[in-house]
């Protein structure tokens, strides 16, 4: 049996067909997005108005599911609808739940988000190095704890979170604002391919559709609904990231934020959430506490340090303190050649990692 029923498939393609007129409607501020997406097929067609209404009604009358299915196969995309198994149950909390989800990659990850909690990591496109690091570490830490990381594949924080998860060979889901076969932004072609291979790409829009202004907040509601916890890493004021956090709150999901420097513009949104009472997320541990309850997760990773010799521990302290190479040599009283060799040992055991091109930093999980 197929994973999508004809009616939902038709609905998915209808939204694809009307994507541009919907954009026009919203531009003119005639309707609110949530209102539109909650309308029935025929009502939606009527609401659009103008020549598009006729086109939409015609489409509804003559929709050929077999052709649509062939189209999906060609695009290597699977559709999953709300009437069939594999649809993530928690999406039904949305008043305007998507009828069909178009997926590319490991579709089983989608159903798994219902059984095992997942975390959405979101943030600004114009992130600081600090924000990128935290997002990357969260992705990686969650992956090594066996938890799926959800994000939007945007530049900056989103991509860092995905990469972190992929780097630890973990599961990650990218929810796109365009068709699942389109790598947007284009700079993330490689990332898109990697997520398709190792994780899952999901969209409400059928293959081939480009992104519209309205489809970003629409995608955000899906990200918020899929996860039990949404972590805001860095977000400006009045940003898409805060929209996602707002959806998550409306749905009764947990929202946490990573504290940023108060003087950094891109951290204002996250800091404001904290000020408003959102839990502080410093690292994967905090996220897991929030997700599963304090102390419910294994603290196995913390024991890694016990088998370090004193010299290595001192070296680790030096890296944690952010010392440069000369500083590390002085602090540990070692020759530079020894320091390089010892740092490699720490790197291959995953305790530190390359910072940018030439320096080192502590990995945070």
């Amino acid at each position, binding site marked *: 049996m197929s994973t999508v029923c004809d009616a939902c498939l038709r609905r998915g393609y209808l939204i694809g067909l009307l994507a541009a007129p919907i954009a026009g409607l919203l531009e003119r501020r005639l309707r609110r997005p949530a209102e539109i997406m909650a309308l029935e097929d025929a009502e939606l067609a009527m609401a659009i108005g103008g020549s598009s209404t006729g086109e939409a009604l015609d489409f509804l009358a003559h929709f050929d599911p077999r052709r649509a299915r062939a189209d999906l196969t060609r695009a290597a995309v699977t559709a999953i609808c709300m009437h069939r198994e594999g649809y993530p149950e928690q999406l039904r909390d949305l008043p305007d739940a998507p009828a069909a989800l178009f997926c590319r990659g490991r579709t089983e990850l989608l159903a798994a988000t219902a059984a095992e909690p997942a975390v959405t990591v979101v943030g600004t*496109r*114009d*992130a*600081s*190095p*600090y924000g*990128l690091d935290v997002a990357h570490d969260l992705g990686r830490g969650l992956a090594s704890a066996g938890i799926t990381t959800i994000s939007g594949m945007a*530049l*900056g924080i989103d991509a860092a979170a995905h990469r972190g998860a992929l*780097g630890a060979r973990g599961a990650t889901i990218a929810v796109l604002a365009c068709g699942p076969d389109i790598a947007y932004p284009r700079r993330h072609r490689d990332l898109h391919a990697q997520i398709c291979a190792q994780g899952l790409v999901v969209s409400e829009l059928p293959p081939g559709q480009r992104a519209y202004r309205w489809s970003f907040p629409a995608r955000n509601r899906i990200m918020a609904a899929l996860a039990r916890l949404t972590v805001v890493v860095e977000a400006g004021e009045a940003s898409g990231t805060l929209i996602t956090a707002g959806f998550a709150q409306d749905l009764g999901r947990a929202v946490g934020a990573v504290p940023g420097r108060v003087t950094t513009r891109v951290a204002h949104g996250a800091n404001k959430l904290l000020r408003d009472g959102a839990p502080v997320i410093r690292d994967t541990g905090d996220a897991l506490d929030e997700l599963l309850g304090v102390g419910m997760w294994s603290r196995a990773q913390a024991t890694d340090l016990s088998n370090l010799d004193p010299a290595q521990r001192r070296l680790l302290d030096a890296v944690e303190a*952010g010392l*440069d*190479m*000369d*500083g590390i*040599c002085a602090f540990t009283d070692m020759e*530079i*050649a*020894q320091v*390089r*060799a*010892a*740092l*490699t*040992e720490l*790197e*291959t*055991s*995953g305790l530190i990692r*390359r*910072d*940018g*091109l*030439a*320096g080192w930093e502590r990995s945070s999980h």
Partner: protein
Amino acid sequence: MPTFALEGVDAREVTVEVDVRRGLPAFAIVGLPDTAVREARERVRAALLNSDLEFPLARLTANLAPAWVRKAGASFDLALAVGVLSASGQVPAAALEGCAVSGELSLGGELRPVRGALAISIGCRRAGLRRLIVAPESAAEAALVGDVEVCPVPSLARLVDLLHERWAPEPPRAGPEPSPPVADAPDLADVRGQLDARRALEIAAAGGHSLLMIGPPGAGKTMLARRLPGILPPLTSDEALDVTRVHGVVGMGSGGLAALRPFRAPHHTISAQGLVGGGARPRPGEVTLAHRGVLFLDELAEFARPALEALRQPLELGEVEITRGQTTLAFPSRVMLVAAANPCPCGRGGDACTCPGMVRDRYRARLSGPLIDRIDMVCQLAPVTADKLAPGAPLGEPSAAVRGRVSRARAAQSRRLARSGIATNAAMTARQMREQVGLAPRAAQPLTAALDRGLLTGRGHDRVLRLARTIADLEEGDLVTAVHVAEALGYRVAA
């Protein structure tokens, strides 16, 4: 009358023939001369007359053979003048047997020096000519080739005396002399701190590995790079000849044998042609001027992409090939590549960086451009702190000590690689490396761990082993141990 035309860094033999016959007085030059060669008519005529010699009132035809080679410049003046003298019977033809000349003439009859004197005397030896007559300024450079008798002659009148055996010049000091010690070169002792970069520089010098230095402005990247020639082994006499020849051709020579390895630091606005050479009349580029020395690319990320692309092949093959018409020229380009870059556009790097995310990303993307896979190692420079610059602060280790270790490591390499025809670990092919690297038991363990963690690619793998081999050579170890490999891994170019 044999003389020479420069083609790239080589001299091609050109024969000047002069025919004198009765007719309306005229002086024609044939054989693809350019304007400067054509103008030689006026210089030759004036020089002869001002030297109290006769300029025949007859129809003169000079031919420059082979006729298909383009001739440029004023270096044919002397050959044309001697051709006229010989054809009009003013000098004995027998005295010109086995003799080549090269020089520009002044209107008063003095000889002026030409570019590429060393290349010309190498050409003489190849052509089997015993004697080379040049201006005194060119003599020292020309005399570096042993087998050719170089006669420094100040003027045309003196030349006629010489050919009539009425005068003999003071012979220039002949033959290559051993390189003087590198005394006036900048010394590593001036560099305080920067332990990581010093160590990296030493390893790079020992194995001929290319190096990228990352550090904030003012940390001393350029200062360190300038000190690299001073810790490389001194030029061998063949290498010194090679350098002198190249520099002589572009008029950069000092007159004598090159004592120091060249150091070239082209500005980042340089064009591809400026970097690798070219032009209608091919001129060597920076990579050739740095031959046997160091090519330093400061602000690597700012170089134009086409320029860096053009550099790839010369770095790999050790020579630049330029094709013009029927001829293909090869410029030598065996250089050690050293590059430097700021960690990000604002230069602060790390936690202090204030660059917007996308600006930084774009910079990183430019940095990992076309040359990054030619870089063997990356090191880090710290910002300089005041206490290191204080008058009482200890000096660094002097260049001479480092050079000693580097030379020993190089000697170990040449013993091991003698039969492979290469000199350094960096030049080992993948196969030579497998056969020659000499791993101690369990030495590959850090490599395996790094591969497992996805920290290393296949290409990076071989690069790390070459580097580890050099580190072992520096410590005079026969086998590469796990510690050597771990240190080498620390310098790898992070993916």
